[in-house]
């Protein structure tokens, strides 16, 4: 009883008097994330002459490509209020599958790459089914998938790396230099295209609309006649597609499909999403934020290495950045 005056919609009137100010505050948040990225870049530029060089900036982007690709896809899932822990080991499994298709089965390059990407989508479909149809909580559903993918990668590869002997061009996908003179790798160009595509997908299409809608109020979305089950499967599948692409890029970068590793990468990707201002409660987030988050992490790792901070400390720094970023975001929300 007695709760008639309460509405489930997060509150209200006094909080945000008009949309203009709300929107302003939203872009301010992105501005802040962007500003902190600039500050970090300026700091390292002053600290070391080797930081702000074309070669190093490209290598930062290169470093951000794989995690960033994972982060783009998982941004969708996180905005629905879900989580995908299987993206790290799923990526490794997709790399191994690329090796199986190209090296073991002798598929042509395009078919092997497409196969690996679609295999990622398949992982996403299964995750989506488990979450949307079987109603397994996303954390558990994708934790299970994380372990399954890690194990399968080892089983399928016989715990040994697979080299792309039959398709030497495979390594070009990530590494081919596409601008004469500068070493600007194709993989980074792919990453940039993916950024644009996912930004359009999230802000301009029905997928994006329902992603926000489900994260904002799933029950109300369903009552409005939206097939929430179907769209959740689609959203997890999108995340899976990005996992497949990341798997190809990562294997290409190393010129081999490594069956181990990947565990922990999902957390780096989630960290990038969270630093970018996407709420783990769902309903709020942006691709631009995720890209800035991924860059902040890559710049930190790169910069700290350049100024010779031992690797052990780099992880400490990234952890602190996550805590500070999320705490600031909460402060902002509370005062908003």
């Amino acid at each position: 009883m007695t709760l008639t005056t309460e509405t489930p919609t997060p509150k209200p009137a006094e909080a945000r008097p008009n949309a203009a100010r709300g929107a302003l505050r939203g872009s301010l948040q992105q501005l802040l994330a962007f500003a902190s990225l600039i500050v970090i870049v300026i700091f390292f530029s002053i600290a070391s002459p080797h930081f702000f060089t074309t070669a190093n900036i490209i290598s930062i982007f290169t470093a951000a490509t794989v995690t960033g690709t994972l982060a783009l896809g998982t941004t969708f899932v996180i905005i629905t209020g879900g989580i995908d822990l299987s993206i790290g080991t799923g990526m490794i499994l997709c790399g191994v599958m690329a090796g199986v298709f190209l090296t073991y089965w002798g598929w042509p390059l395009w078919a092997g790459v497409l196969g690996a990407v679609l295999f990622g989508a398949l992982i996403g479909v299964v995750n989506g089914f488990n979450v949307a149809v079987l109603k397994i909580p996303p954390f558990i559903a994708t934790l299970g998938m994380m372990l399954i993918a890690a194990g399968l990668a080892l089983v399928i590869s016989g715990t040994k790396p697979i080299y792309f002997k039959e398709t030497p061009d495979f390594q070009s996908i990530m590494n081919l230099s596409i601008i004469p003179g500068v070493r600007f790798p194709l993989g980074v160009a792919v990453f940039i295209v993916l950024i644009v595509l996912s930004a359009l997908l999230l802000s301009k299409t029905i997928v994006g609309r329902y992603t926000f809608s489900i994260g904002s109020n799933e029950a109300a979305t369903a009552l409005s006649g939206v097939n929430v089950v179907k769209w959740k499967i689609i959203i997890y599948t999108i995340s899976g597609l990005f996992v497949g692409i990341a798997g190809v890029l990562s294997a290409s970068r190393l010129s081999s499909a490594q069956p181990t590793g990947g565990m922990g990468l999902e957390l780096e990707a989630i960290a990038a999403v969270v630093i970018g201002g996407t709420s783990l409660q769902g309903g709020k987030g942006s691709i631009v934020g995720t890209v800035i988050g991924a860059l902040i992490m890559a710049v930190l790792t790169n910069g700290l290495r350049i100024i010779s901070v031992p690797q052990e400390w780099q992880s400490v720094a990234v952890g602190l950045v996550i805590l500070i970023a999320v705490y600031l975001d909460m402060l902002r929300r509370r005062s908003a």
Partner: protein
Amino acid sequence: MSAPLLEVVGASKSFPGVKALDDVHLDLRAGEVLALVGENGAGKSTLMKLLSGVYTPDEGEFFLSGEQLAITGPKQAQELGISIIHQEFNLMPDLTIAQNIFIGREPRSGGVFLSERSLNRKTRELFDRLGLALDPSEVVGGLTVAKQQMVEIAKALSYNARVLIMDEPTAALNDAEVDTLFDLIRRFTTPTTGVIYISHRMHELRQISDRITVLRDGRYVGTVETATTPTSEVISLMVGREIVSEQRQSDESAPRETVLAVEGLSTKSLLKDVSFELRKGEILGFAGLMGAGRTEVARAIVGADRSESGTITLHGRPVVINNPAEAAKLGIGYLSEDRKQLGVLLERNVRENVVLASLSEYIGALGFVKDKKIERTAREYVTALRIKTPSTSQLVKNLSGGNQQKVVIAKWLAKDCDVLIFDEPTRGIDVGAKDEIYALLNQLAAGGKAIIMISSELPEVLRLSHRVAVMCEGRLTAVLENADATQENIMDYATRFSAYGTVK
């Protein structure tokens, strides 16, 4: 005259243990606003949920303009032209107004991409038609409750609804907003449409409705013309039942000492200047409609909610209570209405639940828990309160509702509380077990405990309370001696809304 716009014939719906609706009739004429009233639990919401397709009826037929309907789900009801606005809004706070209204029906430009522009244009057209001054691109989460309500209504109307059902739409609105809402309702009501309006606010029904249908205990009582029926008659239709007098609490004997005095209690959200005294050995009933603030009083007293002002005096000493732990230390126990969530640990056994609040008394010098002493205490209470359980090791989730409630009572008795606040003590408890709980409450009061009992069931209030405190909109509108209290005058005090200034 032609067939009614909407007709319900012989609708029944049961839930485990409860017959929520029994052979209910309702007819809505085209072009009218039909008010639906009834006490808490009379079956209004269940009926609305049948109409909107949330529940399926056990029995009953529905007709829309004379044609029989089979309502299979919320979406289908909406497509048939029946739209409902629930008490809790169904909006996505992070989306804009336009995005909310056309969710699931987004216009697209060139196939793939959404067209925000045509979305906003369609929304503005809708608002122009309804005379609403809202910006379609505003984010819903930033709107006032009243504006969110307008968005809900606009959404409902955008489906070309013929029947609009509103469940307590004015609960959170101020007077000016209510006027805007009524304008909107009048504009919506045309010769081909109709509105079912659920509310407790008698003066509003008088302003907006043409007829009033009354439900009581899940049954249809009658339908009256608003203009020719005095409010008192509507109230007496709502209450109906008579209480056998010997069942009622016998009168107070001698004046007793005051245990708890509350003075000027106010909270930011609801309570306004609530003052009352609770005496030793008495049961003070709290009556009122949903949302009147009864639970909030209890929560403010035990410090679960922050109070803005007010003083609490316990045994003559002023006390400050910041949280329920401090309240428990002072001997004030609060038994929540939400027993399963906030009252017991369902997955733990009877023993652990009984000593939960007083566990620190069962810790030995070395920090180990004294299991034997706990077992002894638990057995004492199982016997004293006649808790039906095979042993104290039984998990609480395996007990019946009534026995779970007794476990909660045992918990607070073990803590040696002398003020007990029962919030809906018999909710979800079957009829036979209710009598046992009633007997237990009487026994506790006779033993010198001071008891506040919040209940939505007027017969329960009248049967148990020595005195009855009535609340409305966060204010205490009356404290009645049991001898003076009737269902009618309690209902009257419970509907004294401030809009009419009847209560100061």
